[in-house]
């Protein structure tokens, strides 16, 4: 059940260059969260200067609070950065679907996160670790300043930077190609900027690999009303909330899709 809830900011701090993490106390919404991939949508600013909510992927759920990881992108995220502990933020959620892990038994999961796309990937990484499920994690950025995890190949955590300032030099693709070749039966789960997803899409298609993407989209409502957040599909998402054949609503059908169900 989706809820509207006002919650106190518990903490709000810088993780890396341009990237922040905010913990918000949201008992009602957090009790409804089904898993990684789902998101909440926050009001930003005072009054109606910025009328649209900002969809934010859930990075973790703990003790009735929800964490988000956001990148400074425009006025809305600058406003979020300036919130102090104790201030109240309004959220709607949980929205969207979660990564589906049932159908990937017997495969080796490779998680790939880029930019703020790390939020749902880290949530999934935590969940898989709790379940003692083996997996690999690749997090890519342009430079070391944008990374906040430790490069730890032994623990299955591989950072990549375009300039080689931390981890492996190159994009996530360099690392993904190596790891996908090493493991027996790779299954790719990724979230990040469109060019990254497009590169992974090309790779998995060529290699005949399966996987899931959590996609980002501009949204007005996040609840299926506005029909604004469409993505082109290869499958027919002819459901009650989304009757489209060519397009699917990211907020309601997604944000998680099988890689072969969408066109990037």
């Amino acid at each position, binding site marked *: 059940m989706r809820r509207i809830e006002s919650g106190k900011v518990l903490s709000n701090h810088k993780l890396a260059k341009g990237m922040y993490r905010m913990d918000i106390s949201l008992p009602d919404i957090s009790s409804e969260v089904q898993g990684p991939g789902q998101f909440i949508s926050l009001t930003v600013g005072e009054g*109606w200067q910025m*009328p649209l909510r900002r969809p934010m992927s859930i990075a973790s759920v703990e003790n009735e609070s929800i964490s988000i990881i956001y990148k400074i992108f425009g006025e809305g995220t600058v406003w979020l950065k300036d919130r102090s502990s104790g201030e109240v933020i309004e959220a709607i959620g949980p929205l969207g679907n979660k990564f589906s892990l049932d159908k990937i038994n017997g495969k080796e999961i490779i998680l790939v996160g880029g930019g703020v796309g790390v939020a749902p990937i880290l949530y999934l990484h935590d969940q898989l670790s709790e379940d003692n499920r083996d997996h690999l994690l690749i997090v890519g950025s342009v430079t070391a300043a944008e990374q906040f995890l430790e490069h730890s190949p032994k623990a299955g955590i591989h950072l990549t930077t375009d300039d080689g300032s931390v981890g492996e030099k190159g994009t996530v693709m360099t690392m993904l190609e190596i790891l996908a070749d090493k493991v027996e039966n790779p299954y790719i789960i990724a979230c990040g900027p469109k060019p990254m997803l497009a590169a992974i899409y090309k790779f998995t298609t060529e290699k005949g690999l399966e996987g899931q993407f959590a996609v980002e989209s501009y949204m007005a409502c996040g609840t*299926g009303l*506005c*029909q604004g*957040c469409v993505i082109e599909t290869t499958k027919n998402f002819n459901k009650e909330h989304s009757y489209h054949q060519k397009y699917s609503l990211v907020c309601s059908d997604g944000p998680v899709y099988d890689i072969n169900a969408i066109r990037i």
Partner: protein
Amino acid sequence: MNTTIGSIELKNPILVASGTFGYGEKSDEFSDVNQLGGIITKSITLHPREGNPPPRIVETASGMLNSIGLANIGVDRYISDMLPKYDDLNTSVIMNIAGSSLTEYINVLEAVEAVPNSLAGYEINISCPNVGEGGMEFGVDCDLTSQLTSELRQRTDKLLVIKLSPNVTNIAAIAQSAEGAGADAVSAINTVVGMSINPATRKSNVYTKLCGLSGPAVKPVGVAAVYKISQSVSIPVIGIGGITKGVDVVEYLLAGASAVQVGTANFRDPAAGLKILTEFHDFCDKNNISDLTELIGGLRDDT
């Protein structure tokens, strides 16, 4: 706080605008739609429409641009899947119809008229700016508005509302044409044509380039349109554009509206309509207003 639009008595003057509340069948998890004055359902065309390619929306200062492109399920599925759901609602449901030709509007309305239903009436979208053939040619032309209204009037006894575009030289003249051809009411405004460009990429932020502006940014445009129309016609005017607060409703009523529609605010808060209704009632209580006629057209001429 009843208000009368044609033959329909609305329990209060606050409705939710077409395209901002889906088909009116699912927002009840956030609010009780039965408390609203009415629901205008998303534009329906004769055949299902996929809508425009993404990106379809972008935020602008105190507003948003959209170019959804009339994505909808088509009249057949509206009749089979949606109409039965309205039987259980205790509020007025008004169906919004869009078309690209006179025949299309007529066919949609006739298809719905042919089945028993609990609709209160129809709102005719002659003003969608976002599709090549969105009825816009009707919305900018007095004779075509008159012809369309007249053809539809002959085919229904239900409430017939014509939704007007602000993207015209003289909105009052179009309203007079609708009135003359038998419309029960007019609603205004549909979105204002707008555009947004990313300076870094030099690309349009919305696929179709030209799109429709809504939200608080357009409220003064809506209030002025309602004022101009209400000075020129005697049928009720339903005010639309940028309503987010109870006092916005008061403003529209003073300009001459008999009811209003809440649109973009629903995207931020699916319970916006009911919150605005509560604020509106509070305003009326504080100002000892017991009847909406005390507000409708109550703009004072002294400054």
